[in-house]
């Protein structure tokens, strides 16, 4: 008995130090992610930190059986590797799935702790465990629904009915009420599973009404919930490594959500309860005949070939069409001709933060050619051609000019200030925000109607053909 105690306490110091080292490595990992030059070193140091923590845990003298652990780890590897190898276009739903897994892990540990501790559980512990389990459970189902919407297994459109918010909050109220019952009578046993189930249902009700296009913000918010759950679990288990990792993860999700909301000029409440994209009161009353100029791939190629500076503004359409590799070919062809090509990346272009950067990096576009919105706007006056590829809202000038527009005040890439503007998309249909884009009717704008991938491919063929012909 006494040797076990000794064993335990010296092991305890070992873990404590190992976990502190892991935490220091995690922080360095995030610090080094600040720039692409050091980011891979960041991942490496994060892996080392995680490995140190996991390996040390295996020597815990409390562990009496390893069979299930090893099987579970094996399952983790079997699920994790495919999740690490998904296509870049599937990254949003993959992220949602990993939030679901993270929330699941934290929630079931909380549940297990409850059953281990009753009936000797203090009120304070009961509060901690209940909060942890409620947030973990709702994040689990919420993330599953988000993943389903992004994978298009579930309808993308916001699904709402009248009085929905009241119903949802009543359900949440029930979960909180169960918590209070449990605090004063922790052993009224069926209240605990009830609380879990109600929370699971609430997660579904929270995310289902939100439109598929708002999922990125929802995912970032769920990310911060998952982090919060891990931190709460750290409080429950008195494990500081979880508190730190959870707080880091939580602040990351929160910051990303804030960045997205700011870039869309919307509030959290509006994202969560606004059912955006549903009731688009488009101001179509004053439908005048507007003139749209169009151009063919040959004409577009001629204009691009004659330019000195080209700014490409990619958007969600490029992702849908998987056009990034063709865009890279266009970049190569123009660069070879001596045209200076840059990419203006709007913070919410596409459907997740950094979406365009990852796709273009996948296609081998050098990242020093990807410039942020403000820099792009600064160079706009010197830009000969702005080529918009499948973007819409992020270049909509009514965000600057039309006070009545739902996106009024959202910062945009002001391509209308370039000498010539060309827009590749399939139609005049609106984008995510569901509103008309006056850019399309400007005199210096040419519409290039067609699928992004094939249209860009045609331009490249024209440019190369011309080069060969010449």
């Amino acid at each position, binding site marked *: 008995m006494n040797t076990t105690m000794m064993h335990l306490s010296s092991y305890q110091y070992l873990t404590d130090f190992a976990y502190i080292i892991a935490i220091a490595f995690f922080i360095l990992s995030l610090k080094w992610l600040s720039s692409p030059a050091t980011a891979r070193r960041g991942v490496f140091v994060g892996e080392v930190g995680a490995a140190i923590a996991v390996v040390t845990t295996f020597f815990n003298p409390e562990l009496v059986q390893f069979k299930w*652990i090893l099987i579970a780890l094996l399952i*983790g590897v079997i699920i994790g590797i495919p999740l690490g190898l998904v296509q870049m276009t599937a990254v949003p739903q993959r992220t949602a799935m990993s*939030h679901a897994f993270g929330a*699941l892990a934290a929630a079931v540990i909380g549940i*297990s702790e409850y059953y281990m501790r009753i009936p000797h559980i203090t009120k304070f512990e009961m509060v901690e465990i209940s909060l942890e389990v409620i947030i973990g459970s709702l994040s689990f189902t919420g993330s599953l629904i988000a993943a389903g919407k992004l994978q298009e297994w579930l309808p993308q459109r916001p699904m709402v009915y009248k009085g929905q918010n009241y119903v949802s909050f009543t359900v949440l109220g029930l979960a909180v009420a169960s918590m209070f019952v449990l605090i004063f009578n922790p052993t009224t046993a069926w209240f605990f599973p009830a609380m879990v189930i109600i929370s699971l249902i609430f997660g579904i009700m929270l995310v289902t009404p939100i439109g598929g296009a708002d999922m990125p913000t929802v995912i970032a918010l769920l990310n911060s919930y998952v982090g919060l759950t891990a931190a709460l679990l750290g409080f429950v288990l008195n494990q500081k490594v979880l508190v730190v990792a959870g707080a880091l993860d939580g602040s990351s999700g929160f*910051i990303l959500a804030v960045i997205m909301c700011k870039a869309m000029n919307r509030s959290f409440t509006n994202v969560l309860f606004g059912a955006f994209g549903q009731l688009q009161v488009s101001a179509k009353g004053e439908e005048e005949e507007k003139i749209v100029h169009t151009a063919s791939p040959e004409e577009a190629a001629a204009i691009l070939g004659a330019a000195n500076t080209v700014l490409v503004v990619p958007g969600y359409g490029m992702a849908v069409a998987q056009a990034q590799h063709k865009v890279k070919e266009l970049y190569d062809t123009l660069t070879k001709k001596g045209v200076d090509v840059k990419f203006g990346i709007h913070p919410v272009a596409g459907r997740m933060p950094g979406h365009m950067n990852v796709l273009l990096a996948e296609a081998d576009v050098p990242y020093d050619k990807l410039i942020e919105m403000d820099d792009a706007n600064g160079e706009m006056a010197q830009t000969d051609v702005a080529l918009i590829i499948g973007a819409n809202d992020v270049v909509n000038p009514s965000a600057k000019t039309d006070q009545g527009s739902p996106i009024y005040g959202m910062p945009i890439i002001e391509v209308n200030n370039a000498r010539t503007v060309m827009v590749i998309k399939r139609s005049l249909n609106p984008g995510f925000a569901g509103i008309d884009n006056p850019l399309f009717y400007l005199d210096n704008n040419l519409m290039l109607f067609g699928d992004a991938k094939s249209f860009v491919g045609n331009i490249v063929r024209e440019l190369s053909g011309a080069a060969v012909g010449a």
Partner: protein
Amino acid sequence: MPEGFISNLYVFVLAGFLGFEVIRRVSPLLHTPLMALTNALDAIVVVAAIIIAGRKGTALSEILGAIAVAAAFSNMVGGFLITDRMLRMFKLSGRKKQ
């Protein structure tokens, strides 16, 4: 209040501020890898899951523990893997070098 609550609160407050400072500096270029990486780091809950799954306990706690181990570890493996895959794709143009 349970043991360690106050020190956990200190740690939470400091880590929250620190996360805020560090993550605000992450280049928007890398926001997608950032989400994947924080996911992988958060999967450190696997260390708690291992103990729940492996220590003397009820059948329920062993099963729940094993579920947690599998879920968290798949995040850890998958998260690091995809982050590194994404970051490998980011290259500078030939002319410039950092």
